[in-house]
């Protein structure tokens, strides 16, 4: 079993707890061992760089320093945490003058970081370490004909990622198709959901969310698949607010990739966190499964 250091992140352990439980549930069946990074701290998110410049590198770097000692790739299912860690590594590469500064800051906390940690998004591990063929071969309960819109969002594929296209990503389409799902065309699959602007500028965020929901709905999707806790939160929890503001009647369940994979792998639906969804996916999924959800 291949081992990884696992960084859940704050959202994945609260608003996106369904993501956490379903990732843990599928990992063993897929032959990957996720070892929790001990005493991890919040990555600080992209917001931190407006508050303090060096701190915005040093705070997430504490986690990288802890992970470096373990010598394993650092895997996170959270797209925002993934990007924040990638930013530390790319900043150290692009701005060499930051390295001695960071060394001094980390030394004050008895830590050191040599830039060696490979930061991976869960999707990268699933596609490139486990592989589509392997996952498909383990599926016992195919998602027969389930019409899915796959929402990649922003930071999984931007600003720089090696395994997919930044504007028209398709890697997950192949995975879901191999599990029997029907992937609908989804022009907004890599457009922005507004992220944390939903708190500080709700009008702006709601219009972005509405556009994404419309794009999926008008193409016949029965549900939207997501790989980011913030995307799931915005599209699921704010769907009601979108409906009352724009006079729409969307009722699109927003499920995590790991929840669907778990379903296809035949894992007991009760352990996949479906009950956490505000727009319930129960009916939609039940219609496509042998056993009820």
């Amino acid at each position, binding site marked *: 079993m291949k081992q990884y250091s696992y960084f859940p992140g*704050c*959202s994945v*352990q*609260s*608003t996106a*707890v369904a993501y956490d439980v379903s990732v843990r549930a599928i990992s063993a069946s897929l032959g990957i061992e996720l070892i929790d990074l001990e005493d991890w*701290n*919040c990555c*600080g*998110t992209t*917001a*931190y*760089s*407006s*508050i*303090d*410049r*060096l*701190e*915005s*590198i*040093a*705070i997430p770097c*504490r986690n990288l320093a802890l992970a470096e000692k373990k010598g394993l790739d650092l895997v996170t299912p959270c797209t925002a945490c993934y990007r924040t860690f990638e930013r530390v590594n790319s*900043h150290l590469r*692009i*701005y060499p*003058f*930051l390295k001695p*500064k960071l060394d*001094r*800051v*980390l030394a*004050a*906390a*008895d830590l050191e970081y040599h830039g060696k940690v490979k930061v991976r998004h869960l999707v990268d591990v699933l596609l490139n370490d486990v592989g589509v063929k392997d996952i498909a071969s383990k599926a016992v309960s195919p998602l027969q004909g389930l019409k899915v819109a796959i929402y990649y969002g*922003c*930071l999984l594929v*931007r*600003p720089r990622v090696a395994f997919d296209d*930044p504007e028209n990503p398709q890697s997950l389409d192949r995975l879901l198709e191999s599990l029997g799902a029907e992937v609908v065309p989804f022009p907004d699959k890599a*457009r*922005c959901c507004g*992220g*944390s*602007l939903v*708190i*500080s*500028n*709700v*009008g*702006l*965020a709601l219009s*972005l969310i509405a556009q994404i929901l419309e794009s999926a709905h008008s193409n016949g999707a029965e549900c939207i698949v997501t790989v980011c806790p913030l995307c799931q939160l915005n599209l699921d*929890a*704010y769907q*009601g*607010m979108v409906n009352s503001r724009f006079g729409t009647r969307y009722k699109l369940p927003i499920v995590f990739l790991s929840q669907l994979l778990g379903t296809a792998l035949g894992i007991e639906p009760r352990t996949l966190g479906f009950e*956490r969804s*505000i727009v319930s996916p129960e009916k939609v999924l039940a219609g496509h499964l042998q056993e009820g959800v």
Partner: protein
Amino acid sequence: MSKNGQQIAVEGYSVDGYEFVEEIASEPGGESILSCAQCGTCSGSCPNVLWMDHSPRKIIALARAGKREEVLSSNSMWCCATCHLCTVRCPKGIEMPELMHVLEWMAIREGLVNGKVSAPAMQRTLANAVRRQGRVHELGLMGRFFLRTNPLAALKMAPVGLKLLLHGRLPLRAEKIEGTDQLKAIVKEAQAIGGGK
């Protein structure tokens, strides 16, 4: 304009713009302001441009013209969701969200933040939580943010919060890490050193 001690001429700058641009360029991510060709691809790609006082391209033009107050008191950077659609399309390889973050930081530091913008209050609340506990407690974060900015807005958001609470997605208890002393040391040292060139 001087870079690495060498005088360089950059097209499109006013003399007033030199000092402001130099300050921006000394922060990681800010140096890209020197290479912008003003093609406007960023503005055409931005999903939030219609909410901005000035488009991303114009923000760069204004900064180069030395319009410090106009730039730093605008709402433009606070509308950036860091989606990086502009970054992957920019022919000059500029990471516009990084530049926007530099401007946000300068606006806060110089007390020029647009009064209608509430994002800085949220970011400060978040940073303080991380510094104190090492984790973000979403319920506490939202509570403090709305108390700081607009308690009435909290009423509008209450139904969403309640739904999350009822679905077990907003834990009541705040978590705290063991290594808060390490974080304290990191924060103290980082603030003393600064992140610029």
